[in-house]
């Protein structure tokens, strides 16, 4: 319940306060849009009025200095109106076509790339990593920065077969849509948690801890006369959920944490129904500051896709057409036992037909 005398539960400010006049006039009346060049959208209203959007990439971690810079740019070119996208790009909302080019130029000068529209790789949706989260198997922003440096030309152009959505998450909690991305980069732990038996009884409830484990690997035990738990190593798949409920279950491991790569997911309903991402590469080492192995692997997949997919084919649609055997062949990625699911629904992923290509 709200506390009397305090200003609480007011909720967010009303969005109408932030809409530019051209939007207010044409709200719900947009007729169509065009993408005249990468990073620029024109929405045309039934009334004929036009709204120009200039989209630019950001590092998502923004200092207030940068936000003020964006505010200044908005004032200068867009009557003070701007928004952010669901992939953390910034969008300036212009009613004056003449200001599009100057804004683009200034953004370029400031180092904010204009792009991410149409058949491009837009910004990578990502998570906290070593900057802020406790269970991160890898940094997030650093991997993403390294990747985007390499994928930069795919952001500023639109010559891919279709949109290509990349996501990064630093642990299996997958804060984001890693499980449904064209390419997903996922931090993984690969060793069971080390248990701090002295800390555990003080800060954790054993039953909650036991029930947190998806595979039932955690069992109650007594250590030095105090209640604790033990982990059946062979049953643990290092998800780290026990660590989330109990900090004494140290899951982070500098030597064995690493990164896996997943492909072929999507969320839109365009043509194909939404799909989960599937494992492409089970493990690559954590190699800061530039994560070369990860960057190379992603760039390779993007390049192979760009070369072979048909127009409008998302990653997953392309792979479905050519088949997984050919995906592994074309990318040169080795197929291993790790690619074969072995959890609850594993059987549903087996090929239960002889629809096989030679």
């Amino acid at each position, binding site marked *: 319940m709200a506390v009397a005398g305090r200003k609480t539960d007011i909720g*967010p400010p009303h969005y109408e306060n932030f809409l530019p006049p051209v939007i207010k006039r044409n709200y719900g009346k947009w007729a169509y849009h065009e993408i005249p060049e990468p990073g620029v959208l024109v929405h045309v209203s039934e009334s004929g009025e036009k709204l120009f959007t200039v989209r630019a990439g950001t590092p998502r*971690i*923004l*200092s207030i*200095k940068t936000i003020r810079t964006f505010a200044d740019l908005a004032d200068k070119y867009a009557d003070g109106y701007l928004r952010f996208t669901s992939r953390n790009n910034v969008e300036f909302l212009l009613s004056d076509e003449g200001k599009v080019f100057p804004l683009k130029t200034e953004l370029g000068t400031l180092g904010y790339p204009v792009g991410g529209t149409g058949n491009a790789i837009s910004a990578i949706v990502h998570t906290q990593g*070593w900057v802020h989260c406790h269970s991160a198997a890898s940094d997030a922003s650093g991997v993403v920065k390294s990747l985007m440096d390499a994928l930069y030309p795919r952001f500023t152009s639109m010559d891919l077969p279709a949109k290509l959505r990349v996501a990064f998450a630093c642990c299996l909690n997958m804060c984001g849509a890693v499980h449904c991305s064209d390419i997903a980069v996922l931090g993984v732990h690969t060793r069971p948690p080390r248990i701090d038996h002295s800390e555990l009884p003080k800060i954790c409830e054993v039953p909650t801890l036991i029930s947190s484990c998806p595979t039932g690997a955690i069992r109650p035990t007594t250590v030095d006369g105090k209640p604790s738990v033990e982990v059946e190593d062979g049953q643990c798949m290092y998800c780290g959920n026990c660590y989330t409920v109990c900090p004494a279950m140290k899951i982070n491991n500098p030597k064995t944490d690493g990164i896996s790569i997943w492909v072929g997911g999507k969320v839109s309903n365009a043509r194909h129904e939404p799909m989960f991402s599937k494992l492409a590469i089970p493990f690559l080492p954590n190699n800061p*500051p530039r994560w070369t192995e990860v960057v190379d692997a992603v760039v390779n997949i993007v390049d192979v896709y760009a070369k072979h997919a048909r127009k409008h084919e998302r990653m997953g649609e392309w792979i479905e057409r050519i088949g997984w055997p050919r995906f592994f062949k074309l990318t040169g990625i080795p197929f291993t036992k790790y690619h074969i699911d072995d959890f609850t629904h594993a059987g549903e992923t087996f090929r239960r037909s002889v629809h096989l290509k030679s």
Partner: protein
Amino acid sequence: MSEKKYETPLLDELEKGPWPSFIREIKQEAERPMVRDLLGVLERSYEEHIGHWKHGGLVGVMGYGGGVIGRYSDLPEEFPDVSEFHTFRVNQPAGWFYTSGALRDLCDIWDKHGSGLTNMHGSTGDIVFLGGKTTSIEPVFADLTEKGWDLGGSGSDMRTPSCCAGPARCEWANYDTLNACHEITQAYQDELHRPAFPYKFKLKFAGCPNDCVASVARADMSIIGTWKDEIQIDQEQVRAYAARGMDIEREIVELCPCDCISWDGQAMEIADGECVKCMHCINHMPKALRPGKERGAAILIGAKAPIVGGALLSSVFVPFLEMTPPYSDLRELIEAIWDFWGEHGKNRERVGEFIQRVGLGKFLEQIGLDPVPEMIAHPRSNPYIFFDDEIVAGAEA
């Protein structure tokens, strides 16, 4: 307050390259001791390949249970200024629209009390203020509410709803995503701020099946705009696309998942009864094709990340719902779900997992919805049917 400055040779590498650098962002605020320590500890992580953050006691705003994520350094002696480094989730405005003035208000607040670092935005959609001390929590909150802002969700509550640009900036919105998102957020301020559910509950509003907020993958309830009647066709514009060189047969007709479009070089016909509203044809011929006029949304439930029982996409709950304010039907549904799941859900059991545990059939009965075949990809192939008494009542009599 430490005066140290750290060498960050590894992080410095990340200032290179064409993509804007988060390290540059952090360094921009490095006059603050807290941010200097952040750089220090992050460089340490880069050296050691391990993070240095940990959970700790609950922190928060008086009277709220959510909105602030407590975070502590596990090297507080070495990096005292990030020994506490909490985040605030500030509820973004619907559709992430801002004025420069509104942004400056936020910057001023965070300048005064925190690290000066943010996420614009967090994955759930909030404005994230990254790194504040426990003592700053109440002051930040007071300044925020003073300027008309409030916190978002965290913990086992309704999480901050989010929505796509919708009718504000898109021609395909089948309902007013911004309005729905705002109204629902306002309607459930209590559920947003005071965790009382078995686990988190996320809502995302997408104006059409393109689902630009990834609601089907990330929301316990996905409200996805769609239509019932015929796709609106402007034949003249169709011909214009052809004239401009679009290979309509290959790019549109052949890629329709329902094989329901035909094009004879003059006119495009759509067998709307077969169309599954996938958006593909509309996406690529925005000047010629538009969603129908009888508009609303499909309501799906249950998406979530893998922990514990495996990742889920949302699944169809109501194939079509009219979406007009005050959204009474939607609210009735939401509340019915919260009631049933709230009472019977286990701790840390998302609604999608709950439905799988109790069975969708039983869940529907409790919510008061009739089962319809639109809810399923196909009927069961598994013959382990739990029969109620009444089904054989006739035979038994």
